[in-house]
């Protein structure tokens, strides 16, 4: 997942405007020696508690998907996706990679609609906007996550992608 502090900051801001945030614990994206792939629901529950402790997620409740990933599949299977669902149950925002700054904007927009409705401001139409977004690579965060998972996770990434998203120890030593 993305980093917890920016999400927590947003949650503090919007929970009073009737927003409920959840983190949905899915499958391990980069399984390694320390945090291997799930082999049982019990293990998955333990991992979810570990995520809470490692990232110090105290305010946003964590929901644990079932072993088969039913909810993860229903929402599109990506590792870091974000959804905003309005109180009518309609998807108003989806992103293939969490971006707290962008989420702030869409939460503010939804909160503004509530205010408009409350003060009976007429709404011309419900429109749709689309955009591309660019998620900056954060080598420190990437290295922290892969190292935490273990050497296997690093090797698997290297095999799959051809290079690591951060400088290796050997590369750092040359600098």
């Amino acid at each position, binding site marked *: *997942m*993305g980093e917890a502090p920016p*999400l927590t900051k947003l949650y503090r801001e919007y929970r009073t405007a*009737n927003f*409920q*945030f*959840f*983190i*949905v614990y899915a*499958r*391990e*994206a*980069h*399984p390694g020696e320390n*945090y*291997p*792939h799930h*082999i049982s629901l019990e293990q998955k*529950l333990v*991992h979810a508690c*570990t*995520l809470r402790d*490692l990232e110090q997620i105290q305010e946003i*409740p*964590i*929901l*644990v*998907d*079932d*072993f088969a*990933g039913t*909810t993860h*599949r*229903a*929402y*599109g*299977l990506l*590792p*870091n*996706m*974000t*959804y*905003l*669902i*309005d*109180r*009518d*149950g*309609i*998807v*108003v925002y*989806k992103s293939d990679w969490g971006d707290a700054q962008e*989420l702030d904007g869409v939460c503010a927009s939804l909160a503004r609609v509530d205010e408009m409705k409350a003060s009976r401001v007429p709404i011309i139409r419900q429109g*749709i906007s689309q955009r591309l977004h660019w998620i900056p690579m954060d080598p420190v965060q990437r290295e922290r*996550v892969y190292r935490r*998972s273990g050497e296997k996770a690093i090797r*698997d*990434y290297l*095999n*799959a992608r051809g290079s690591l998203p951060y400088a290796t120890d050997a590369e750092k030593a040359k600098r």
Partner: protein
Amino acid sequence: MSGYNYESFGQCDIDAPDFWSVATIGTKAPDFCLTDLDGNLVSLSSFAGKKHVMLEFGSIT
């Protein structure tokens, strides 16, 4: 083991085209009923008419 709970990142279907064809903007979000870390069951539908819900998917790694 491959499949949903893949053992190695290389087996991941990260480029699966599903994301933009499911739970699309403007449609009803798929309901779920999941347990939180205190063992409570939480369903999306229980927030209907009450709260906006943000979901962030993730894992330790």
